């Protein structure tokens, strides 16, 4: 692989990734996430894995990123900036990440993997991949299909609206039921006169 292409792709992946992590506007973060996923798909293409690259575009950039953007838009005003965490939390997280990065760099330097860089002449054919899925890896393959089914049902069950109304909507629809807290003296509870009214 051409060195220029590699570093270009690394930039296309890492700069949007930083935007995902640091941006105060989560909508921009989600769009940066899509760019980063597409860069990763291009890296798979340079690694002679076109099928994985295609799946990356379809599943990650197409489905997961859009799903997360929808979840964000359903739960948050998209123009409102996010609350950032405390300085202490940011500092300690940065320290933890730098520690992990140092450890990983040391492991990479100590491993003999710099020498082992003779790439395969040809990529994996999609046909071989399919045969492997249905022979060597047939049990995990079937387990994944069960997992997807369970996820489908589970997500619907978790996200479904509950049958009974939450208390605040009952109060909103019937204001007579709402207790005026200012009229209740502390420690006395609700008096019988107010109960009649």
């Amino acid at each position, binding site marked *: *692989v051409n*060195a220029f292409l590699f570093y270009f792709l*690394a930039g296309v*992946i*890492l700069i949007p*990734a930083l935007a*995902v*992590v640091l941006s105060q506007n*989560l909508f921009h973060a*989600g769009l940066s*996430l899509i760019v*980063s*996923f597409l860069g*990763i798909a291009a*890296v798979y293409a340079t*690694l002679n*894995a076109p*099928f*994985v690259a295609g*799946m*990356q575009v379809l*599943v*990650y950039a197409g*489905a*997961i*990123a859009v*799903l*997360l953007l929808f*979840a*964000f838009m359903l*739960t*948050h005003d998209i123009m409102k900036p*996010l*609350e950032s*965490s405390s300085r202490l*939390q940011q500092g300690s*997280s940065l320290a933890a*990440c730098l520690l*992990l*990065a140092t450890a*990983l*760099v040391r492991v*990479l330097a100590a491993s003999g*993997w710099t020498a*082992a*860089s*003779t*790439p*395969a002449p040809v990529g*994996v054919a999609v046909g071989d*991949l399919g045969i492997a899925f249905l022979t060597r890896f047939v049990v995990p393959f079937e387990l994944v299909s069960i*997992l*997807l089914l369970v*996820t*489908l049902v589970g*997500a*619907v069950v*978790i*996200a479904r609206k509950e049958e009974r109304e*939450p208390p605040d909507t009952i109060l909103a629809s019937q204001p007579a039921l709402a207790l005026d807290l200012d009229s209740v003296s502390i420690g006395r509870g609700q008096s019988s006169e107010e109960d009649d009214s």
Partner: protein
Amino acid sequence: VIGLIHYLGLAAALFCVGLYGVLTRRNAVAVLMSLELMFNAVNINLVAFSHFQPELTGIVFSLFIIAVAAAEATVGVALVLSVYRNQRDIDLDNATSLRW
């Protein structure tokens, strides 16, 4: 020349960026986004190993990870919506009703 070690370095950097996001974000959806970055870093590793030491397993495993990540994102979004319905925001610092 670009070898295996460069891809592993790229994946390590992406993993650390994702970890920083998971640790610092307070919005649940933002945490899920950072989590997806970490998944992708692992996938780059697997595909790179599969390319440089010819073997099918890395690619197969990365496809399994993509499938499981899709499942994880779906359940995660369902949980986020459920939490939102109960407490009207998805700030993880406020989601403490299970805390002892």
